[in-house]
Protein backbone atom coordinates (compact mmCIF):
# COMPACT_ATOMS: atom_id res chain seq x y z
CA UNK A 1 0.00 0.00 0.00
CA UNK A 2 1.38 3.37 -0.96
CA UNK A 3 0.11 6.77 0.03
CA UNK A 4 1.49 9.53 -2.11
CA UNK A 5 1.46 13.29 -1.95
CA UNK A 6 3.32 15.60 -4.28
CA UNK A 7 6.47 15.39 -2.21
CA UNK A 8 6.21 12.28 -0.08
CA UNK A 9 5.54 8.58 -0.61
CA UNK A 10 4.53 6.63 2.47
CA UNK A 11 4.79 2.85 2.27
CA UNK A 12 3.20 0.65 4.88
CA UNK A 13 3.74 -3.04 4.20
CA UNK A 14 4.78 -6.36 5.62
CA UNK A 15 8.47 -5.56 5.44
CA UNK A 16 9.76 -9.08 6.01
CA UNK A 17 8.95 -10.13 2.51
CA UNK A 18 10.25 -7.15 0.61
CA UNK A 19 13.39 -5.44 -0.51
CA UNK A 20 11.84 -2.07 -1.05
CA UNK A 21 14.77 0.09 -0.18
CA UNK A 22 16.96 -1.28 -2.92
CA UNK A 23 14.15 -0.68 -5.40
CA UNK A 24 13.44 2.80 -4.17
CA UNK A 25 17.09 3.75 -4.30
CA UNK A 26 17.46 2.41 -7.83
CA UNK A 27 14.47 4.37 -9.12
CA UNK A 28 14.75 7.47 -6.94
CA UNK A 29 18.45 7.79 -6.12
CA UNK A 30 18.13 11.35 -4.81
CA UNK A 31 15.24 10.66 -2.47
CA UNK A 32 15.78 10.46 1.26
CA UNK A 33 14.16 7.49 3.00
CA UNK A 34 13.03 7.77 6.59
CA UNK A 35 11.70 4.94 8.71
CA UNK A 36 8.75 5.99 10.85
CA UNK A 37 7.88 3.92 13.88
CA UNK A 38 4.74 4.23 15.89
CA UNK A 39 3.48 1.77 18.52
CA UNK A 40 4.65 -1.40 16.78
CA UNK A 41 4.18 -0.16 13.23
CA UNK A 42 6.87 0.69 10.75
CA UNK A 43 6.45 2.77 7.62
CA UNK A 44 8.82 4.19 5.09
CA UNK A 45 8.56 7.83 4.19
CA UNK A 46 10.27 8.71 0.93
CA UNK A 47 11.04 12.41 0.65
CA UNK A 48 11.25 13.21 -3.06
CA UNK A 49 12.24 16.79 -2.47
CA UNK A 50 15.24 16.14 -0.28
CA UNK A 51 17.76 18.94 -0.67
CA UNK A 52 15.12 21.55 -1.44
CA UNK A 53 13.73 22.07 2.03
CA UNK A 54 13.69 20.26 5.31
CA UNK A 55 11.43 17.27 5.90
CA UNK A 56 8.41 18.19 7.96
CA UNK A 57 8.58 15.07 10.08
CA UNK A 58 11.22 13.31 12.15
CA UNK A 59 12.26 9.79 11.25
CA UNK A 60 15.20 7.42 11.32
CA UNK A 61 17.27 7.66 8.15
CA UNK A 62 17.72 4.22 6.57
CA UNK A 63 20.08 3.43 3.73
CA UNK A 64 19.71 -0.31 3.13
CA UNK A 65 17.23 -3.14 3.51
CA UNK A 66 19.50 -4.57 6.19
CA UNK A 67 19.06 -1.37 8.20
CA UNK A 68 15.34 -1.78 7.78
CA UNK A 69 15.34 -5.40 8.94
CA UNK A 70 17.40 -4.52 12.03
CA UNK A 71 15.08 -1.64 12.78
CA UNK A 72 12.05 -3.86 12.35
CA UNK A 73 13.36 -6.30 14.97
CA UNK A 74 13.63 -3.44 17.42
CA UNK A 75 10.32 -1.70 16.78
CA UNK A 76 8.69 -1.28 20.18
CA UNK A 77 5.26 -2.75 20.68
Amino acid sequence: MAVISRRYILLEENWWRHNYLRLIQSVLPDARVLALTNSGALGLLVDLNFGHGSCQIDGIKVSSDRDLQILLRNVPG
Partner: protein
Amino acid sequence: MLARFFQRLVNSLRYGTRLGPLIGRFQPWDDFYWPRYNKDFYRREISRVGYLDRLSETSWSIENARIIVSSKRDLHPNHRLIYETALNLRPRAITEIGCGGGDHLANLKLLLPEVYLVGFDVSADQLEFARERNFANDGVVRSCLYELRVDAHPRWKTSRTFCAEHGRDIPTLHSARGKLVAS
Protein backbone atom coordinates in the same frame (compact mmCIF):
# COMPACT_ATOMS: atom_id res chain seq x y z
CA MET B 1 -0.88 -26.29 -12.33
CA LEU B 2 2.75 -27.06 -11.52
CA ALA B 3 3.69 -23.40 -12.01
CA ARG B 4 0.92 -22.34 -9.63
CA PHE B 5 2.13 -24.83 -7.02
CA PHE B 6 5.68 -23.49 -7.39
CA GLN B 7 4.45 -19.91 -6.96
CA ARG B 8 2.58 -20.89 -3.81
CA LEU B 9 5.65 -22.62 -2.42
CA VAL B 10 7.84 -19.58 -3.03
CA ASN B 11 5.19 -17.22 -1.67
CA SER B 12 4.87 -19.29 1.51
CA LEU B 13 8.63 -19.08 1.99
CA ARG B 14 8.44 -15.39 1.39
CA TYR B 15 5.60 -14.79 3.81
CA GLY B 16 6.54 -17.30 6.44
CA THR B 17 10.29 -16.91 6.72
CA ARG B 18 12.83 -14.16 6.82
CA LEU B 19 14.00 -15.03 3.33
CA GLY B 20 11.60 -12.41 1.96
CA PRO B 21 14.08 -9.76 0.82
CA LEU B 22 16.31 -12.41 -0.77
CA ILE B 23 13.49 -14.16 -2.61
CA GLY B 24 12.05 -10.78 -3.61
CA ARG B 25 15.12 -10.13 -5.74
CA PHE B 26 14.32 -13.04 -8.03
CA GLN B 27 10.55 -13.44 -7.81
CA PRO B 28 9.03 -12.20 -11.07
CA TRP B 29 5.35 -12.47 -10.14
CA ASP B 30 3.11 -10.55 -7.83
CA ASP B 31 2.69 -11.46 -4.16
CA PHE B 32 -1.04 -11.93 -4.41
CA TYR B 33 -3.24 -14.14 -6.50
CA TRP B 34 -5.56 -11.37 -7.62
CA PRO B 35 -8.45 -13.43 -9.05
CA ARG B 36 -9.04 -14.70 -5.48
CA TYR B 37 -9.09 -11.17 -4.15
CA ASN B 38 -12.68 -10.32 -5.00
CA LYS B 39 -15.28 -8.34 -3.07
CA ASP B 40 -16.48 -11.25 -0.97
CA PHE B 41 -12.95 -12.28 -0.04
CA TYR B 42 -12.12 -8.73 0.96
CA ARG B 43 -15.30 -8.43 3.02
CA ARG B 44 -14.36 -11.60 4.93
CA GLU B 45 -10.83 -10.32 5.50
CA ILE B 46 -12.16 -7.08 6.95
CA SER B 47 -14.58 -8.86 9.27
CA ARG B 48 -11.67 -10.81 10.81
CA VAL B 49 -9.75 -7.72 11.81
CA GLY B 50 -10.10 -6.87 15.48
CA TYR B 51 -9.24 -3.22 15.09
CA LEU B 52 -11.30 -0.14 14.44
CA ASP B 53 -11.57 0.26 10.68
CA ARG B 54 -13.48 3.49 10.32
CA LEU B 55 -13.34 6.56 12.50
CA SER B 56 -16.93 7.33 11.54
CA GLU B 57 -18.01 4.41 13.74
CA THR B 58 -16.88 6.09 16.94
CA SER B 59 -16.06 9.47 18.40
CA TRP B 60 -12.50 10.65 18.10
CA SER B 61 -10.32 13.68 18.65
CA ILE B 62 -6.86 14.89 17.72
CA GLU B 63 -4.35 15.94 20.35
CA ASN B 64 -0.88 17.03 19.22
CA ALA B 65 -1.28 15.20 15.89
CA ARG B 66 -2.23 12.01 17.75
CA ILE B 67 -5.63 10.44 17.22
CA ILE B 68 -7.58 9.61 20.36
CA VAL B 69 -10.48 7.21 19.85
CA SER B 70 -13.13 6.57 22.43
CA SER B 71 -14.13 3.02 21.44
CA LYS B 72 -12.71 -0.18 22.95
CA ARG B 73 -11.22 -1.11 19.59
CA ASP B 74 -8.20 0.97 18.66
CA LEU B 75 -6.87 1.76 15.21
CA HIS B 76 -4.41 -0.76 13.78
CA PRO B 77 -0.86 0.53 14.46
CA ASN B 78 -0.07 0.58 10.73
CA HIS B 79 -3.20 2.60 10.00
CA ARG B 80 -2.51 4.95 12.86
CA LEU B 81 0.95 5.50 11.39
CA ILE B 82 -0.56 6.54 8.06
CA TYR B 83 -3.10 8.92 9.55
CA GLU B 84 -0.77 10.54 12.05
CA THR B 85 1.93 10.97 9.41
CA ALA B 86 -0.63 12.67 7.18
CA LEU B 87 -1.68 14.86 10.09
CA ASN B 88 1.93 15.87 10.63
CA LEU B 89 2.71 16.49 6.98
CA ARG B 90 -0.60 18.12 6.04
CA PRO B 91 -0.18 17.63 2.29
CA ARG B 92 -2.52 19.32 -0.14
CA ALA B 93 -3.35 16.03 -1.85
CA ILE B 94 -3.08 12.33 -1.09
CA THR B 95 -3.28 9.44 -3.53
CA GLU B 96 -3.65 5.92 -2.28
CA ILE B 97 -2.39 3.22 -4.60
CA GLY B 98 -4.32 0.05 -3.87
CA CYS B 99 -7.15 1.63 -1.91
CA GLY B 100 -9.18 -1.57 -1.48
CA GLY B 101 -12.35 -0.88 0.50
CA GLY B 102 -11.44 2.80 0.81
CA ASP B 103 -11.33 2.89 4.61
CA HIS B 104 -8.06 4.83 4.70
CA LEU B 105 -9.44 7.44 2.34
CA ALA B 106 -12.67 7.71 4.32
CA ASN B 107 -10.70 8.19 7.55
CA LEU B 108 -8.37 10.72 5.94
CA LYS B 109 -11.39 12.60 4.66
CA LEU B 110 -12.60 12.96 8.23
CA LEU B 111 -9.18 13.87 9.62
CA LEU B 112 -8.12 16.20 6.82
CA PRO B 113 -11.27 17.48 5.14
CA GLU B 114 -9.36 20.12 3.17
CA VAL B 115 -7.09 17.58 1.44
CA TYR B 116 -7.80 16.38 -2.10
CA LEU B 117 -8.09 12.59 -1.97
CA VAL B 118 -8.05 9.97 -4.67
CA GLY B 119 -7.67 6.20 -4.50
CA PHE B 120 -6.83 3.74 -7.22
CA ASP B 121 -7.23 0.01 -7.26
CA VAL B 122 -6.69 -2.66 -9.86
CA SER B 123 -9.70 -4.68 -8.69
CA ALA B 124 -13.10 -3.56 -9.99
CA ASP B 125 -14.72 -5.70 -7.28
CA GLN B 126 -12.89 -3.87 -4.53
CA LEU B 127 -13.75 -0.48 -5.99
CA GLU B 128 -17.39 -1.46 -6.10
CA PHE B 129 -17.07 -2.47 -2.46
CA ALA B 130 -15.34 0.84 -1.64
CA ARG B 131 -18.12 2.83 -3.27
CA GLU B 132 -20.75 0.78 -1.48
CA ARG B 133 -18.95 1.03 1.87
CA ASN B 134 -17.59 4.57 1.90
CA PHE B 135 -18.12 6.64 -1.21
CA ALA B 136 -21.62 6.25 -2.53
CA ASN B 137 -21.86 9.62 -4.25
CA ASP B 138 -18.41 10.93 -4.95
CA GLY B 139 -15.52 10.07 -7.22
CA VAL B 140 -12.80 9.53 -4.64
CA VAL B 141 -12.05 5.98 -5.75
CA ARG B 142 -11.12 5.25 -9.33
CA SER B 143 -10.23 2.15 -11.22
CA CYS B 144 -6.91 1.38 -12.79
CA LEU B 145 -6.09 -1.46 -15.11
CA TYR B 146 -2.63 -2.09 -13.77
CA GLU B 147 -1.48 -1.79 -10.21
CA LEU B 148 1.59 0.18 -9.33
CA ARG B 149 4.24 -2.45 -8.73
CA VAL B 150 6.79 -1.98 -6.04
CA ASP B 151 8.34 -5.38 -5.59
CA ALA B 152 9.10 -6.83 -9.02
CA HIS B 153 12.16 -4.82 -9.84
CA PRO B 154 12.63 -5.57 -13.55
CA ARG B 155 9.04 -4.63 -14.31
CA TRP B 156 8.58 -1.83 -11.86
CA LYS B 157 10.00 0.88 -14.07
CA THR B 158 7.80 -0.08 -16.99
CA SER B 159 4.54 -0.89 -15.25
CA ARG B 160 1.78 1.68 -15.32
CA THR B 161 -1.18 2.59 -13.22
CA PHE B 162 -3.85 3.26 -15.78
CA CYS B 163 -6.93 5.21 -14.76
CA ALA B 164 -9.69 3.55 -16.73
CA GLU B 165 -12.32 6.14 -15.92
CA HIS B 166 -10.20 9.08 -17.02
CA GLY B 167 -8.60 7.20 -19.89
CA ARG B 168 -5.07 8.20 -19.03
CA ASP B 169 -1.99 6.75 -17.46
CA ILE B 170 -0.92 7.67 -13.98
CA PRO B 171 2.88 7.85 -13.95
CA THR B 172 4.82 5.24 -12.02
CA LEU B 173 7.01 6.15 -9.11
CA HIS B 174 9.82 6.56 -11.63
CA SER B 175 8.17 9.68 -12.98
CA ALA B 176 5.85 10.45 -10.09
CA ARG B 177 7.71 13.54 -8.97
CA GLY B 178 5.26 16.39 -9.17
CA LYS B 179 2.92 14.60 -11.55
CA LEU B 180 1.02 11.96 -9.69
CA VAL B 181 -1.37 14.14 -7.79
CA ALA B 182 -2.94 17.47 -8.57
CA SER B 183 -1.96 19.88 -5.84
